[in-house]
């Protein structure tokens, strides 16, 4: 199976690889895994407490090219967005942008879960009321 150019681009030049300080109250960490292929993905956000804007997003993914590309793209997209707007990102958006084939759709689901889990963690730390969706994803 051939990867799309967008996947290869993100795989070769992943954006925003790295780590944020997990203990900071401004940082939310989402750690998710895909039992289908054994991938594991960590996505972190740093939220400006005044504006609720995600100012920094970092990820580290162990997995296939599509999983790395999906998380790389996810960090690119959520940076500069307000927390609530970041939740609007759907895995289908990632599938479209990266032209993922059906067998790799779970990679995009993983990236969406990671965004939700990171935001859920941040909300929990900051006592923000959770939306129904993010409660489910953060557990």
């Amino acid at each position: 199976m051939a990867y799309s150019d967008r996947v290869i681009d993100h795989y070769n030049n992943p954006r925003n690889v790295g780590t944020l300080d997990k203990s900071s109250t401004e940082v939310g960490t989402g750690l998710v895994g895909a039992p289908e292929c054994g991938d594991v993905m960590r996505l972190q956000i740093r939220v400006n407490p005044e504006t609720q804007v995600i100012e920094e997003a970092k990820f580290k993914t162990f997995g296939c090219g599509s999983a790395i590309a999906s998380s790389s793209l996810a960090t690119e997209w959520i940076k500069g967005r307000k927390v609530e707007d970041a939740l609007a990102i759907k895995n289908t958006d990632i599938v479209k942008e990266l032209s993922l084939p059906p067998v790799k759709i779970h990679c995009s689901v993983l990236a969406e879960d990671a965004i939700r889990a990171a935001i859920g963690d941040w909300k929990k730390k900051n006592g923000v009321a959770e939306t129904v969706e993010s409660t489910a994803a953060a557990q």
Partner: protein
Amino acid sequence: MLKVLDSAVPVACWSCAVAHNDATLFCPHCSKIQPPPGGDYFSVFGLVPHLDLDLSELEHEFHRLSRKLHPDRFARAADNEKQWSLADTALLNDAYRTLREPIHRTEYLLKLHGAAIGEEHSGKDRKDPSRVPADLLEEVFELNMQLEEMRAARKMGETDAELQASLEQAKRKFDGLMDEVDHDLRAQWKAWDEGDAGARAAAQKAMVALLDRRRYLNNLVRDVTETLGA
């Protein structure tokens, strides 16, 4: 290739015309070889689907049927019988390979009952949190970090004794966890084999989760072994 015909459908023997259950390799009436039967791998061995198999019995039956089906015995038979001996032998080999291996057997039985296993799973029910072995993620992530560090160090021609020791310890731990999973899986076999419909459904769910966990662990152990052995 698994055929999904209903094994309970009676078919008439091509030779003696007596109706028999389609799952059989030889006509129970005239003993003539039959075309590859429908039904599942268990029925090839005359078994009902179950998980706690007697492996020595299975092996014994495999050898007995292999001998009976051997193409050499059909050297002077009609063309269609020759072909069936080849096709039946291929089916028997596939069935044996699948059933004798505990994980393959479990996955096979679960698939027969409609469970989505491994890569074939489309991600649609990913919202079911029971599918993600959450307690493992943290450790899996840490271990992957260490493995990456180890490989980077190797590339630079360095060896990090501390890291090596930590990886070896991790490997032992994950080996142990794998044994636990296998033990739990065996318990679920019994629950499935002996249970009613409700107990079976519960056991199936538990086994799918255990197999997910096992796949995770298996990949880790493989990666650690590769990195340590490099």
